[in-house]
């Protein structure tokens, strides 16, 4: 086995891996390597041929491949090494990364810093226990998207979409463009899990009905899907008797959630957050294993790639500084929790601040939709900070910069989202300080 040494290695060459590698190189890591299992960089962006990417990062609207190629070009202008068609088999504490490829076989990389950037996978029918038979024609939306957009084949003619995740909504529009008939989208929750703009642009513009509060209770068909049975559910998500109806279709696309692809981290013993299924990290995106960082959808599932790039740059800079021996030890670690109204928060812990640091950016997912709300920071049980949110949706990340002086010396931080009292005007965006 050949052995190599690098300062920073990213596992994955999607948006997170590319942004982390670039940031690491810019922050002074001399030898940077991207390990990518596909035959090109870009990850899932390459199959997302619709536009809507990059409004924040590049201030223009790009397609997925367009966004990816901005980064591919930037990487091409550096001396960052890229190994394609290369799968990582193990990444062990100490920074020993074993990979395999058809052209180079097994190779070992000794890395001073490793950035996990493996992205996520789609939740399957089995994970949500949808009953019925197991005919051909049931695909996760992303697998179908790859076949349609990259291989040029279609997964069916009469399509039903289960779950209202963004990929499902995008595929509703794509299949309509391709000439298939998209009959409906069924979502078990009383609200959509996709971005509002996708509901409008992918369903409403094409007259595709979205059934909220509906669960698929059976998939039918022996060779190929012939239809599904759907029922309404109550607020405990239990099927309401007498509401069942059948929908004929030859294709079911599932868009029922994404799960960080964290097997390498799990195998290495990284401490995971049971809610995000990603690593527990501090503000530097340090995992529990020294020298291992995480960013992007392997850390927590994002709504916009722009946030992935931003977060990965944080991880990449941290990885570079760790490689150079410039990243201070964590010091006193303080837990950060997602309290009332919130489901997730990243980072989940704070290490000692760097001198001169003015604010820390936190990313949240709401537990349920709410109208005008307040994002609150409770530090050691006392309200330390408040910010107005016009509307809260579980499908959209909440991003907030919290001033370091508000966090102060607190030992434990708890964030909450609570309904805004009437005295705050709906358009008031002024940060209210407690």
């Amino acid at each position, binding site marked *: *086995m050949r052995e190599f040494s690098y300062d920073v290695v990213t596992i994955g060459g999607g948006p997170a891996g590319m942004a982390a590698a670039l940031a690491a190189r810019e922050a002074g890591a001399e030898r940077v390597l991207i390990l990518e*299992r596909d035959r090109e960089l870009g990850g899932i962006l390459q199959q997302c041929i619709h536009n809507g990417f990059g409004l924040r990062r590049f201030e223009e609207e790009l397609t997925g491949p367009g966004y990816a190629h901005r980064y591919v070009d930037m990487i091409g202008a550096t001396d960052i090494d890229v190994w394609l*068609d290369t*799968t990582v*088999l193990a990444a062990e504490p100490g920074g020993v990364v*074993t990979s*395999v*490829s*058809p*052209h*180079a*076989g*097994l190779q070992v990389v000794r890395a001073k810093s490793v950035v996990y950037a493996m992205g996520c*996978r*789609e939740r*399957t*029918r*089995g*994970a949500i*226990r949808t*009953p*019925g*038979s*197991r*005919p*051909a*024609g049931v*695909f*996760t939306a*992303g*697998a179908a998207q*790859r*076949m349609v957009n990259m*291989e*040029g*084949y*279609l*997964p*069916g*003619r009469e399509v039903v979409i289960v779950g209202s995740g963004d990929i499902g909504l995008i595929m509703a529009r794509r299949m309509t463009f*391709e*000439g*298939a008939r998209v009959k409906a989208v069924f979502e078990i929750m009383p609200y959509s899990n996709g971005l509002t703009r996708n509901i409008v642009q992918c369903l409403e513009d094409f007259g595709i009905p979205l059934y909220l509060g509906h669960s698929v*209770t*059976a998939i*039918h068909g*022996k*060779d*190929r899907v012939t239809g599904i049975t759907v029922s309404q559910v109550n607020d405990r998500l239990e*099927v309401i008797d007498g509401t069942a109806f059948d929908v004929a279709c030859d294709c079911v696309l599932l868009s029922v959630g994404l799960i960080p*692809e964290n*097997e390498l981290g*799990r195998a290495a013993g990284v401490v995971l957050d049971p809610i995000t299924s990603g690593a527990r990290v501090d503000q530097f995106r340090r995992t529990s294993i020294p020298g291992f960082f995480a960013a992007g959808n392997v850390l927590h599932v994002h709504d916009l790639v722009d946030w992935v790039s931003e977060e990965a740059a944080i991880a990449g800079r941290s990885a570079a500084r760790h490689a150079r021996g410039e990243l201070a030890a964590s010091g006193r670690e303080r837990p950060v929790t997602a309290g009332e109204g919130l489901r997730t928060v990243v980072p989940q812990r704070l290490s000692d601040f760097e001198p001169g640091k003015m604010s820390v950016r936190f990313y949240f997912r709401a537990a349920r939709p709410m109208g005008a709300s307040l994002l609150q920071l409770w530090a050691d049980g006392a309200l330390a900070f408040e910010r107005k949110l016009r509307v809260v949706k579980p499908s959209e990340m909440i991003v907030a910069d919290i001033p370091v002086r508000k966090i102060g010396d607190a030992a434990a931080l708890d964030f909450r989202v609570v309904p805004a009292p009437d005295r705050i005007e709906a358009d008031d965006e002024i940060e209210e300080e407690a």
Partner: protein
Amino acid sequence: MTGSFGAGPLPESADVVVIGGGVVGCAIARQLSRFELSVVLIESAPDVATGTSKANSGILHAGFDAEPGTWKARLNVRGAQLYAELAEGLGIPRKATGSLVVARDAVQMETVADLRHRGIDNGVPGLEIWNRDQVVAHEPNISPDVAGALWAPTGAIVCPFLATVGFAENAVRNGARIVTECAVIGFEVADRQIVAVRTTRGRVAARFVVNAAGLHSADVARLAGDDSFTIRPRRGEYILFDRSVGQLVNTVLFPTPDKLSKGILVSPTVHGNVFIGPDAVDIDDPEDRETTAGGLAGIIAGARRIVPALPLGTAITEFAGLRAAAGKDFVIGPSPAARGLVHAAGIQSPGLTSAPAIGEAIVEMLQDVGLRLRPKASFVPVNRQKPRFHDLDRQVQARLIAGDRLYGRVICRCETITEAEIVAAIQSPCGARTVDGVKRRVRAGAGRCQGGFCGPRVTAILARELGIPVTAVRKDSANSWLFLSRADLEAGEGVHA
């Protein structure tokens, strides 16, 4: 005769025709391939192991359940021994885990004691009654209300697909022809003697026919004018859990059985997963493999009585299997209606365990009814070993890649299955023809993402290796097409519609 596998033409004649490519039919074909005979196995699906053999508990029963003197009792114990001898050479994954029948009170402890005596009568070695502490020490996650258990050290687990494929491949290696997508439509009988089998692929003349048609075996018998038995499909649902929770149980855990079935079990698989199931529901349609919300809830409740803390969040798939139940015992023996026709039917549990012993028994019966058996000097009892990249150490992996670069490309990331393994699964003597056929042979797509990542890639490899368009690649059954071309969609119909 040179062996073959696939949807090719039928030969004009054969010494023996075996109907059905489940584990029983394939084990029979393999046993026949030891002798100087032309053997043809016909299977209606595109692959072997697509009926009962693809969805069952994958357990090699020790043999204490069956009533002494029955076929089940005789063949179970012999079958378990044969797997122990044959599995490695045939490439059949098998693990000697032992099994426990768990009792929760004094009444069940009596039943368990009775099972032990029955097992001793059946010749099952090593049976022991364990007390609560012994059980808990062996299975830390077991329900705290366990009273004790019957320990059967010869209980084991096996991969049911690779058992079937292993027998089939060895049969083909030794000259058997397996013709797929070939269904029986009738028999030609002269003077009460079978003389030919008529199929959807034409006629094959044969004086000896084995009916191993599983769920359809009573229908096949009827085609020969034999209505001596009926088959009642009995459905059982299962939930399979991710390998990340593979340590949940160390051995096969049965509840104390009732009259209908062995009950809902919690068991490891040979591939490191855990499953729960099955229930037992009599149904009418021999193709109805739908899982149900009620059925899944029932097996969860049943399994929780043995292991209370089930990791339901790590479920990766649910499925239903159908047992071909005929009565209390297997239906094994010559047809009372047509000479030359021998049944291996009604093979419910412990059918997987018994399969190689059924092979022996059926071949003896064929000899009894006049088939001449001359041992084949060239018989090769083993299959070519197929390396499993994931299980090998780095030095061996490196050597494999040096010999074939495709060992360096991981296609299924959940199970770490390489392109070379998939190509080998397609190009072997009983090679995969479908996406599920690849999954059953090498586990590409059997992991936690259930083919979400590798499905399109496996489809492309199948198309390339089989020399067919992507639109002709099927999931499993004959009409289970996966993808359309844009032209198919525009035309409003595809060639496979």
